[in-house]
């Protein structure tokens, strides 16, 4: 396969503000809850009060009879399951026969106002015969545990067993072998916009319009068609502004389907706005994870073997679970050169809200364990943490043992940059007491090379439209959820045509207008949609150049495209863009072109079962250094500063790339320091922003970003992803910095003050014990 030519960007080297930024800073941006719903019914959901049980009786007759209630729906109204993988769709929008977590939707009402809707919920009579409930992977996997799903023995959604290379030989040849247990708490996306959905069913035309918070509109579209038994051509799903996603809205979500069911039943318009508590319960975030990791290392720091055992507590339904447990193993590779890897992963069902995809999907917790153990072993061997990473670098292009292709690899430069910027060599070991430095590396995919739903379509498609007004309209199904993907599309088109960014407008994510797009997940948009946008712009350029050449009586090869089309060097003849457009429209009329992008099969990962997960055409790479202060009386950790370098191939919009890197590092910091979902007998005890603590501005450090550009041979202008790769490095860098500051290794996330204090007390106790022993 030949490498695509790298197109050097021109417009955006310093970066441009978001093309929809003015809407956001003026308050004009309309999010789902802001859409006109004055005449809409109010939707509300009745949720299961128990964690596990059989529904004995569900009587909605009194609720239906309440004046002002337009519709009540239950599991009886939807006998179809929905979900992510065709082989694992085991969830109903409203429970049928059985509830499997506290807060699971059981029934829903649409009424004329909030008070009536709330009152109707109270009138629903629900009787549930409780079953034993399991809140940990261990209890759910016990031999005598009641099965959540009859077809899943052992309450195992999926177990994965992969082995590459000679692991036994790898450990035998090691100078040092260490094994540690790590535990990472479940966390949540906690996007600031609560979930909301507005559905309108027109009984006269039989059409349904859904405006909702989805990151993947086309898929929700299909799931609604399936659940409502509607012809999908009668459905339209529109994405308004979205207040953050981070993976929360990648799956079709129960409340979105429920709102559509209500709209159809009520033959009208229904607005469903979930509370923050309900938004937390909808969940689909990073699972609680237990990791047993064993590494072998030579005296020089070369990794000789890796053995990793992962258990994820996945919650009550499949969701993205199979993908998550596969990612956790697959992405052990692709960052370093490791000669032997064994992975055993277990995804477990438990009576808690379902987990799903969250930024850094599947990779974060195993990367945390890996980078921690790597540091501890380096310390034991007297090696510098940077030296150990450098001893295990890959050489691109290469193919890992699990068939992941690495086409560009800027990790070495990332290491150099943060080592220098942080003053690592001069400062490590010379900081005042209780202050420390730690570092770690991470990586992430630029979209899955083999999509989950294999339809044979291209991975991405962009349409461009050019008409009499001279404006170029880009139509893309890619959902801009704040990451700036529409701006990226505009830049890609403007740079290819060498025209002003103002000339471009982007219409995104409306299934009636924009071409289908696989959506905003796994950091696929820049790589895939960016390439499709460039392809479309090249096709438009060909048409315009031909028209200009005819008009200027020159050969098309000599025409330079831009706001003014010119005949090559030296020739003075030129034609303004508007005149070129007018010439191109003669005989043809309005121009519509299409551009596409497809990942060739060569990049689709290994042939082993689950081998497609982790495959991508471009990995991003990151290294970061974290500086901390630890108060050894209170256990309070302060992050003083973070230095991070990320290889995103090429920064199409450096301003947005910086923003993504800062945001992902900070989100890693939240997971590392304070974020944790907690359940008391299945009851969410974290379901508010007071209980679910994310770092405030007062606690958030300066983050110094360095962009490394390795110019990927296949990325658009050489670009790769920039939104997820840096996240996974923060938690281990922090824990490594704490070890450097106070000499304590912590194996649990988050590293809350009580955990630090507990570890300090234990150390004092052990020191005292050793002293007593020595004295006797």
């Amino acid at each position, binding site marked *: 396969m030949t490498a695509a030519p790298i197109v050097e960007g021109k417009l955006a080297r310093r970066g441009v503000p978001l093309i929809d930024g003015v809407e956001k800073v003026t*308050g004009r941006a309309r999010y789902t809850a802001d859409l006109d719903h004055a005449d809409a019914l109010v939707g509300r959901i009745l949720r299961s009060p128990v964690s596990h049980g059989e529904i004995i009786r569900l009587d909605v007759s009194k609720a239906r009879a*309440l004046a002002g209630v337009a519709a009540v729906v239950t599991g009886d109204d939807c006998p179809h399951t929905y979900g992510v993988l065709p082989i694992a769709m085991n969830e109903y929008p409203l429970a049928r026969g059985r509830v499997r977590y506290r807060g699971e939707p059981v029934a829903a009402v649409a009424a004329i106002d909030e008070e009536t809707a709330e009152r109707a919920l109270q009138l629903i009579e629900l009787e549930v015969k409780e079953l034993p409930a399991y809140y940990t992977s261990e209890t759910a996997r016990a031999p005598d545990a009641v099965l959540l799903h009859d077809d899943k023995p052992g309450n195992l959604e999926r177990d994965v067993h992969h082995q590459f290379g000679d692991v036994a030989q790898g450990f035998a040849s090691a100078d040092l072998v260490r094994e540690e247990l790590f535990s990472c708490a479940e966390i949540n996306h906690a996007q*600031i916009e609560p979930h909301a959905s507005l559905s309108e069913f027109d009984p006269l035309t039989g059409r349904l319009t859904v405006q909702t918070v989805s990151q993947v509109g086309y898929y929700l579209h299909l799931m609604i068609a399936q659940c409502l038994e509607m012809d999908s051509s009668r459905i339209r799903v529109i994405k308004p502004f979205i207040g953050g996603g981070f993976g929360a809205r990648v799956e079709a979500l129960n409340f979105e389907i429920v709102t559509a069911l209500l709209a159809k039943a009520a033959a009208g318009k229904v607005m469903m706005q979930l509370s*923050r508590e309900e938004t937390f319960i909808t969940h689909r975030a990073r699972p609680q994870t237990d990791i047993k990791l064993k590494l072998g290392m030579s005296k020089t720091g070369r990794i000789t073997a890796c053995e990793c055992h992962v258990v994820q507590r996945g919650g009550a339904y499949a969701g993205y679970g199979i993908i998550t447990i596969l990612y956790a193993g697959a992405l052990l590779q692709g960052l370093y050169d490791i000669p032997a890897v064994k992975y055993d992963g277990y995804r477990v069902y438990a009576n808690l809200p379902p987990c799903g995809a969250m930024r850094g999907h599947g990779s974060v917790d195993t990367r945390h364990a890996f980078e921690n153990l790597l540091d501890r072993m380096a310390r034991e061997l007297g090696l510098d943490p940077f030296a150990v990473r450098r001893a295990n670098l890959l050489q691109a292009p290469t193919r890992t043992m699990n068939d992941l292709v690495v086409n560009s690899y800027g990790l070495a430069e990332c290491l150099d940059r943060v080592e220098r910027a942080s003053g690592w060599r001069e400062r490590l070991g010379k900081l005042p007491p209780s202050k420390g430095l730690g570092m770690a590396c991470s990586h992430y995919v630029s979209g899955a090379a083999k999509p989950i739903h294999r339809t044979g379509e291209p991975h991405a498609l962009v349409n461009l439209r050019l008409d009499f007004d001279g404006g170029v309209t880009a139509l893309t199904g890619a959902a801009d959820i704040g990451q700036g993907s529409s701006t990226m599309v505009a830049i890609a088109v403007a740079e290819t045509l060498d025209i002003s960014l103002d000339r471009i407008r982007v219409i995104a994510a409306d299934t009636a207008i924009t071409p289908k797009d696989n959506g905003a997940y796994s950091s696929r948009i820049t790589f895939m949609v960016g390439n499709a946008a460039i392809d479309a712009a090249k096709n438009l350029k060909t048409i315009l150049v031909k028209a200009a050449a005819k008009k200027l009586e020159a050969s098309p090869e000599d025409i330079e495209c831009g706001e003014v089309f010119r005949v090559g060097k030296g020739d003075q003849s030129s034609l303004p863009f508007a005149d070129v457009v007018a010439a191109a429209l003669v005989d043809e009329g309005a121009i519509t072109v299409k551009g596409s992008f497809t990942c060739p099969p060569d990049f689709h990962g290994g042939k082993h079962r689950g081998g497609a997960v982790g495959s991508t055409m471009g990995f991003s790479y990151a290294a970061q250094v974290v500086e901390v202060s630890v108060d050894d009386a209170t256990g309070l950790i302060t992050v003083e500063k973070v230095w991070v370098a990320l290889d995103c191939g090429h920064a199409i919009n450096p301003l947005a790339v910086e*923003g993504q890197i*800062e*945001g992902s590092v900070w989100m890693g910091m939240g997971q590392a320091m304070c974020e944790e979902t907690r359940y008391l007998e299945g009851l969410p005890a974290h379901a508010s922003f*007071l209980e679910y603590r*994310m770092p405030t501005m007062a606690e958030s450090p300066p983050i110094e970003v360095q962009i490394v550009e390795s110019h990927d041979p296949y990325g658009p202008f050489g670009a790769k992803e920039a939104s997820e790769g840096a996240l996974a490095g923060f938690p281990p860098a922090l824990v490594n910095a704490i070890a450097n500051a106070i000499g304590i290794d912590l194996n649990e996330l988050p590293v809350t003050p009580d955990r630090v204090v507990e570890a300090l007390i234990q150390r004092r106790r052990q020191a005292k014990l050793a002293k007593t022993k020595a004295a006797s």
Partner: protein
Amino acid sequence: MHAPAPQPKKRLLRLRLNGRWREDAVAEKALLVDYLREVAHLTGVKTGCDGGECGACTVLVDGEAVPSCITLAVRCEGRDVETIEGLATQGRLNRLQRAFHEKLGTQCGFCTPGMIMAAEALLRRNPTPSDVEIRTALSGNLCRCTGYVKIIESVKAAAETTS
């Protein structure tokens, strides 16, 4: 047939909203955020939590940053209420709006109106805030996208702007 829910008691509310006096009948228990969004149609005011946790609903009441989701609308009788919609004047962005736009102090944009209003209150009170003063003043406004880095840069840039 069950009787419908009783209608809440209403009162006439007079206040100055984004510089213009207006009167509306509002329920006594109505929250300021609901009044602003549903009666005055100022949907730039956001609800991000179940009450007083995130700052997305921040507006100015007599120049002071207030979470409108835990403020009763009737408490604003005769007072001056400002929302994000009132900041841009005569087709020009306010200095904070411009800085948040140009410096990428906004990503998804959901926390942005509340964040800008809280920053506006800060700059009126303290035209040249230090990093620590910015961090303290805005610590009640949560953002999930930016890591706050570019928000702080935006506020500082706005403070350095004269208009």
